[in-house]
């Protein structure tokens, strides 16, 4: 055990990093309701490629046939561009599935709002890849990254 103590300590401290990574930025907890997860399946009607965050608008058809407009907060355009995602990655009319959390503001004006934690095309392909597949964003420190 003595031999493994330093590694054990490192593991514990790495676990403390979790909050830095999983907790949101841009005041997530003030804007969105972490107790209200939503899963939305709909058609992309507009993509606002703006700072500080992109917003994806989608029309979600309800079981009774009525349609509700949602707008979903996505990543910051600079980061998305560096990850290889641009304005054309999500064409108007795409069928997508979004998992996120609804805004605390439930007025639904001009549309219901949520953050888009995970976004995928209806065939399962992810829109925002994150660390899965290619590894997390590079910081240029490791020459092997290049």
């Amino acid at each position, binding site marked *: 055990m003595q031999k493994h103590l330093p590694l054990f300590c*490192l593991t*514990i*401290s*790495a676990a*403390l*990093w*979790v*909050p*830095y*990574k999983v*907790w*949101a*930025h841009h*005041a*997530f*907890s*003030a*804007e*969105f309701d*972490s*107790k209200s*997860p939503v*899963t939305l399946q709909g058609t992309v009607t507009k993509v*606002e490629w*703006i*700072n*500080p*965050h992109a917003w994806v608008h989608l029309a979600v058809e309800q079981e009774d046939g009525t349609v509700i407009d949602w707008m979903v*907060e*996505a*990543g*910051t*355009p*600079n*980061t*998305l*561009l*560096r990850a290889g995602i641009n304005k054309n990655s999500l064409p108007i009319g795409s069928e997508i599935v979004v*998992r*996120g*959390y609804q*805004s*605390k*503001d*439930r*007025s639904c004006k001009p549309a219901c*709002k949520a953050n888009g*934690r*995970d976004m995928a095309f209806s065939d399962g392909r992810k829109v925002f*890849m*994150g*660390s899965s597949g290619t*590894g*997390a*964003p*590079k*910081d*240029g*420190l*490791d020459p092997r990254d290049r």
Partner: protein
Amino acid sequence: MKTLLPSLLLFSSLASAQAWQTPRMPWGAPDLQGTWTNATITALERLDGLDELVITEEQARELERQDAGLAADIDNLPEGDLPAGKVVGGYNTAWLDAGTRMLRVKGEPRTSIIVEPKNGKVPYNIRGWSRYWWRMIKTQKRNNPEEQLLGDRCVVGFGSTGGPPMLPVLYNNNYQFVQSPGQVMILVEMNHAVRTIRIGGEPLPEQIRPWLGDSIGHWEGDTLVVETTRFHPQQSLRGAIKHQLYVGMNSKVTERFTRIGEQEIHYEFTVEDKTVYRRPWRGELTFRPADGQIYEFACHEGNYGMIGILAGEREQGVNGIRWLFELVTNMPEETDHEQLGPGRFNRKP
């Protein structure tokens, strides 16, 4: 052969030493120009469980592997509805660009940006610590835009990204340096803020307090030394997920930039203010070439977040005793940081 070998070794070391020389501007000053990044997973303050500032390359690789594993876990939640709860992690890592590596300073893997004091923590005195908390609690009222964090307000970037000291945050950790004989300009990608450092200039009058302070520079050999004072009072609290920091409006920050390689600027800083800290504290970072150009981050363009925060507060906000109860039992993400809790004073240095 015995005499030839040392000569060969000497020759090869001389050749490698001569391989790189500090690049210079036409007027002779070292050339720091370019687009640089300070992204790293190493935090400003040292985390518990890590006693040493410097760790081995193997330990650093192990921490990087664990960090990559955590990122993969975040991005691959099981199918179906997301979990509901107090702390859910609102975004996957495609949102973030915080780096994947521990900080290396001149090749040494580091566990904190702070190098002094030795415990790797900001040495607040009781006054600085109370001011920090007072300002932090006020940001949690969410009933007005004026007291929100500067990053949420799109005034300057989150935390101390524009600084000084310039510290890494969760994304947009890119900086463009441009030089002229009398000025060094640093464009900070988050939130498109600019520092203009006047070489050999005079400080501004006491009452003029620009965002990111008033910076005066001079060259000491090949090192750019920048002294910044006259901070804007609203920039004292520098809140971000990666770090939370209080820098007084009358604090003095001294930065030293030295180009030590084609792909490396060594960055040191000292923060002094007797009214806020028990002693001056010091940190070190490395700037490396950024991948590609800086993009404009015109944060006011569509800051729906502020509307969402204020509207959310009006709809679901609570007041009075309940607000206090919520604050104590559900500390917001910026403050739930055990290194900044009251327990920090119980720890041995």
